[in-house]
């Protein structure tokens, strides 16, 4: 018996034989000409296109499409051309050399960019297979198995017959890796970063615990039975990760999507969002040189509301400023645009535009079944909240709220909640204002990190008032899309999360493994840290 530890990314217990997926190693020399290698690249790109079309997992689709674009890359082709001699060359070496500089550049950039290096390896692998006339080694799983691999590419997961895959163990990757997302999507137990998994042999009998992040090779029957029994007890207390977003203890957390146009909204519906938590109205005006008429606006909002039937949509009134220019608003040049006339402050000079927006939203809402909420951006004081609420209600808007994105608003959140029905934290701006660091300045990106305990304590203040006064408090910044941070925000009193619709699935899966009190306890510890890194590490340790 041997135990291998990893990071549990999708809960559940399963025991089954290992199905080891090894990539074929290409030992032989592959001779060929320029035209052969180019046509192999094109045919790989075509295969990837059709795989992208087959999969309905957006995350896999994006990666596969990017790989197809790399295979068709004109710069790559000219590099290959310059490397290939008159006579036939070993195409493996040509490919490796043509990728070399790109790999170095991408690795040096780190993060997402560095991860693309694995795409280059994948493409090389596929092209060599193609040149050797090898069919993509299809992974034929015919009986219940636990899939074990070094790593699974999106293309792999698009071709595997997942019916018999009862669990996933990969030795590489982290909690946000492709494998983790796929596993949660399928609802099967999985662990990633399982160092030592490469020693598992095909056919070994495994006991996989995705909640604890452990896989046991050759387990005893007592071990299997007790793990299954324990998991059943845990599972009975939880619900499945379908339906609305909720924690393990069934506390509901609204999971909504951010959108700025009808296409985004359509996608949100396809990806099972419970509604829209932030509909940005400024994008509707970006290509307009004059202000759209009320009728034009009503038509647009009606189209949106119709799509969402009786779901919830939170509309944000015009959020523009000299840093976010809208063509028909001639804004003055400001010394300090982030601190200038932006968001709700536009009402000082352009009250009519905001009034017309509210009127159009109200007319469209009246004609629909949609649960329409409206909020104003950049509210700084309780007085501004009162002013907005008065204006919105005078047009017949039923649910009126504000965005809390300045420290001033967060600190006086009790006074602001007294004026409105709900609030939503704009974590990107709140972070830049708390840290006094421009969110657009990449030199300061270490400071503009929402994990910073200063920012989290600010959110804690607003969150505690929301809880005390029983008012909904949302988040509509990027923070909500980070599963770990989402859990901390919930622990601080946030009741709904709005994010890019692609992230919903992952956040939904992660929070369903946690209870409210776990989130609260961890949040209390995290706000006592002294750096963003420390805060994140602690959350990771406590919640994963």
């Amino acid at each position, binding site marked *: 018996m041997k135990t291998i530890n990893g990071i549990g990314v999708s809960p559940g217990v399963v025991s089954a034989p290992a199905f080891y997926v090894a990539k074929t190693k290409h030992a032989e020399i592959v001779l060929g000409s320029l035209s052969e290698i180019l046509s192999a690249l094109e045919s790989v790109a075509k295969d990837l296109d059709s795989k992208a079309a087959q999969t309905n997992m957006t995350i896999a689709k*994006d990666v596969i499409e990017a790989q197809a*674009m790399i295979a068709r890359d004109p*710069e790559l082709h000219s590099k290959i051309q310059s490397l290939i001699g008159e006579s036939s060359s070993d195409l493996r070496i040509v490919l490796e050399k043509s990728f070399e500089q790109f790999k170095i550049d*991408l690795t040096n950039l780190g993060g997402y960019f560095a991860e693309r290096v694995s795409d280059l390896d994948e493409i090389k692998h596929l092209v060599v297979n193609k040149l050797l006339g090898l069919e993509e080694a299809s992974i034929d799983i015919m009986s219940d198995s636990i899939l074990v691999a070094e790593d699974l590419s999106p293309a792999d997961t698009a071709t595997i017959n997942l019916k018999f895959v009862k669990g996933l163990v990969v030795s590489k990757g982290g909690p946000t890796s492709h494998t983790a997302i796929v596993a949660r999507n399928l609802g099967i137990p999985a662990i990633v970063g399982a160092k030592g998994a490469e020693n598992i042999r095909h056919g070994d009998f495994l006991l996989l615990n995705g909640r604890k992040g452990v896989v046991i090779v050759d387990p005893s029957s007592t071990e299997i039975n007790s793990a299954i029994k324990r998991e059943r007890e845990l599972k009975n207390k939880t619900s499945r990760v379908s339906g609305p977003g909720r924690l393990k203890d069934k506390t509901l957390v609204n999971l909504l999507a951010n959108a700025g146009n009808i296409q985004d909204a359509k996608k949100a519906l396809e990806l099972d969002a419970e509604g829209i938590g932030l509909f*940005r109205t400024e994008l509707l005006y970006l290509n307009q040189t004059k202000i759209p008429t009320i009728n034009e606006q009503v038509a647009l909002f009606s189209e949106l509301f119709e799509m969402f039937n009786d779901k919830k949509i939170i509309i944000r009134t015009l959020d523009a400023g000299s840093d976010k220019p809208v063509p028909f608003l001639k804004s003055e040049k400001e010394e300090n645009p982030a601190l200038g006339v932006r968001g709700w402050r536009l009402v000082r000079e352009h009250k009519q535009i905001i009034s017309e927006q509210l009127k159009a939203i109200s007319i469209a809402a009246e004609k629909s079944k949609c649960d329409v909420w409206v909020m104003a951006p950049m509210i700084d004081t309780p007085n501004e909240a009162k002013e907005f609420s008065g204006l919105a209600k005078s047009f017949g808007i039923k649910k009126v709220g504000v965005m809390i994105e300045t420290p001033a608003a967060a600190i006086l959140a009790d006074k602001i909640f007294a004026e409105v029905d709900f609030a939503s934290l704009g974590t990107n701006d709140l972070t830049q204002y708390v840290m006094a660091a421009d969110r*657009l300045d990449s030199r300061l990106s270490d400071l503009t990190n929402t994990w910073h305990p200063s920012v989290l304590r600010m959110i804690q203040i607003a969150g505690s008032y929301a809880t005390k006064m029983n008012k909904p408090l949302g988040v509509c910044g990027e923070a909500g899309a980070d599963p770990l941070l989402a859990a901390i925000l919930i622990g601080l009193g946030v009741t709904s999360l709005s994010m890019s619709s692609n992230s919903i699935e992952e956040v939904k899966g992660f929070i369903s493994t946690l209870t409210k009190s776990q989130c609260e306890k961890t949040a209390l510890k995290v706000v006592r840290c002294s750096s963003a890194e420390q805060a994140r590490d602690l959350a990771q340790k406590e919640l994963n």
Partner: protein
Amino acid sequence: MIKATTKIAHAVGLHARPAAMVVKLVSSSGEKVTLSRLNQSPVNAASMLSVLSLGLKQGEEVEISIDSDEANDLMEQIVSLISTPLDE
């Protein structure tokens, strides 16, 4: 030749979907388009690998140039792809 300068709006920088959108648009236009950091050597905007290797981050300025005098529409589309955030 027309040129324009804009700032990267995407929180994640010019990678993943934003980069793919730019490359797709440029490839389908058939025009010769380059991207560069200010005062640095330009790269082919139809090349996914080159665009990714620039490693442009949010808030950085990027110069776009098109080898044509009649591609104002295309320029406008590229600028708006780069300077409009996909998400908050």
